[in-house]
């Protein structure tokens, strides 16, 4: 890094830069805590952490309005947090407690939140894409200028639902922003071993969808591109597509011995840690003091500590409620799909 004018961050409003750093730090610290709590058997099931990929959610979600919708994958703690789901409700969900954002029915892979229009938490690869198309179809038919952002990994590109959804969205010119988080591995299968064409943005272009590949480790680049894309989608420009090139620093899940990639590769990517990059750029530009950084860390740590305290104080759902929420309870919001109303 040098102090030259084209360094990321040098055009940056320092307060906004610190905000983005904090957003990424909040995710990082929450995920680190999740790993710890998993090892302590507080969290069970499958756990997939987002460490290394924080710039993607932080950059993309920054450009959304409250009435927009978000559809995500099973690696979605960070998306939920940055969308506005309280950290305590996220952790309590992973504890399986009623204080969780899905009262413990969903777990790590199925975080949902009507208040922030967060539609999961989808653990079927590519299964969220048709939902996003439908949410956008509803907005278009109702004449609302909302955007639906759909996150998925590059593994989803091999699924039929990816292709069906892109085609439908383009055919009907729906307000969807597709965000492919390309971290190079579908579990342990490298992109080159699963795709005949590894340029993912090209696949979107084949459906006549405007598509950009973005450095997913550079939160400023992600934010700027996402903002342009969201503006274009919102103003009636039809679906847009971002391929966000990123890397998962940790294992796929807590059961992954990482036989499929070597440590040197991971080490190379660790040098591009999105938090380290932005911090260094801001420090070089004189926009971040040691005290600023300490404050950001303290804020993120305090939020996580409070979340742990909240989750620890949670309570299990009573067994007599087992069969609730299979069908709607009569009299409970029969008028709209929850979260769908104006």
């Amino acid at each position: 890094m040098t102090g030259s004018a084209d360094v990321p961050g040098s055009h940056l409003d320092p307060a906004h830069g610190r905000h983005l750093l904090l957003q990424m730090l909040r995710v990082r610290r929450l995920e680190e805590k999740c790993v710890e709590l998993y090892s302590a058997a507080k969290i069970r099931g499958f756990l997939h952490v987002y460490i290394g990929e924080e710039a993607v959610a932080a950059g993309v979600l920054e450009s959304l309005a409250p009435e927009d919708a978000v559809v995500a994958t099973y690696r979605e703690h960070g998306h939920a947090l940055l969308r506005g789901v309280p950290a305590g409700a996220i952790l309590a969900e992973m504890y399986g407690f009623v204080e969780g954002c899905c009262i413990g029915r969903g777990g790590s892979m199925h975080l949902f939140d009507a208040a922030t229009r967060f539609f999961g938490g989808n653990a079927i690869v590519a299964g969220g894409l048709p939902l996003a198309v439908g949410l956008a179809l509803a907005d278009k038919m109702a004449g609302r200028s909302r955007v639906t952002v759909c996150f998925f990994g590059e593994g989803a590109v091999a699924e039929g639902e990816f292709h069906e959804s892109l085609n439908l969205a383009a055919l009907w010119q729906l307000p969807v922003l597709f965000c492919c988080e390309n971290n190079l591995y579908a579990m342990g299968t490298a992109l080159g071993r699963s795709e005949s064409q590894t340029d993912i943005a090209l696949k979107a272009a084949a459906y006549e969808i405007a598509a950009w590949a973005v450095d997913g480790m550079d939160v400023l680049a992600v934010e700027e591109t996402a903002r342009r894309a969201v503006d274009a989608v919102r103003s009636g420009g039809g679906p847009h597509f971002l391929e966000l090139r990123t890397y998962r620093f940790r294992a796929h899940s807590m059961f992954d011995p990482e036989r499929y990639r070597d440590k040197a590769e991971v080490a190379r990517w660790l040098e591009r840690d999105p938090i380290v990059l932005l911090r260094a750029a801001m420090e070089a530009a004189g926009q971040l003091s040691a005290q600023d950084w300490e404050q950001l860390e303290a804020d993120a740590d305090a939020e996580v500590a409070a979340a742990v305290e909240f989750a620890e104080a949670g309570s299990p759902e009573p067994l007599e409620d087992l069969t609730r929420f299979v069908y709607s309870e009569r009299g409970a919001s029969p008028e709209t799909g929850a979260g769908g109303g104006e």
Partner: protein
Amino acid sequence: MKSSYREALRAGIRDAMLRDERVFLMGEDVGAYGGSFAVSLGLLEEFGPERIRDTPLSESGFVGAGIGAALGGMRPIVEIMTVNFSLLALDQIVNNAASLLHMSGGQFNVPVVIRMTTGAGRQLGAQHSHSLEGWYAHIPGLRILAPATLADARGMLWTALEDPDPVLIFEHGSLYNVTGELDDDAGPVDIDTAAVRRPGNDVSLITYGGTLPTVLDAAGQLANEGIDAEVLDLRTLRPLDDAAILTSARRTHRAVVVDEGWRSGSISAEISARITEQAFYDLDAPVGRVCSAEVPIPYSKQLELAALPSVERILAAAREAVGARG
């Protein structure tokens, strides 16, 4: 008023479109083609391409889009050409439509209606003829309907659209051309209860959907033999109307389930089990079943007919049940 089953379905869709602007119909060839079974013929002209929405051949994509649109506040009717094609959308139906309310802790209900053709009898071979509604009835979170009459074809749709949760409607292909009288003021009907289509005292013939006419035919012939059969039309396969099933079985003391699905692991097995679990001491005979032969439905006419529940097989099962009187 004279109506066909197809026209009754169309009247139901039209009625729903007029009642609620959030309702729209989406599926393969529902618009310009007029519906692969002509159910939606003329609706494109009346309601336009936004609300009578042709889709590409993307079952998972457009069923999922229907689920998403329901989440977004619309009331979609998604048409799948046949139940066999719905297998391409199983991920969306089972992993999303049936599960979202539960996974989200009650936050996101899915008011989508998915219609599809089911059943055999038209020499369409193994990939257009199966009866998989019993499979779907296995899934918590779904409501499964099988309209067998004109009134139900006309009236189930609106009630299904008012349901806050996903509803699948199975239309048996052999019924589309059935014609009869439909009340001029026919309208929405309940989707909770089974209906006695023919009262009787000697044996309960329990069926649904496309086999109802066959069973009624058999019941008529049984009457000539002095066997007074009751015919119960389930109408809804999930949740089953246990009370109606048990009331009938307890009263006649004999039950035969007639189901075009295969016997193994089937809805007929479920019904038989429930009767046995809850009305065993009221029975004078083992519960009988008439199901399809356990083969993919063959093309050739004689083999296809041999595979399906027939009047003859129903008669034999009913006679056996009554003969077991001892």
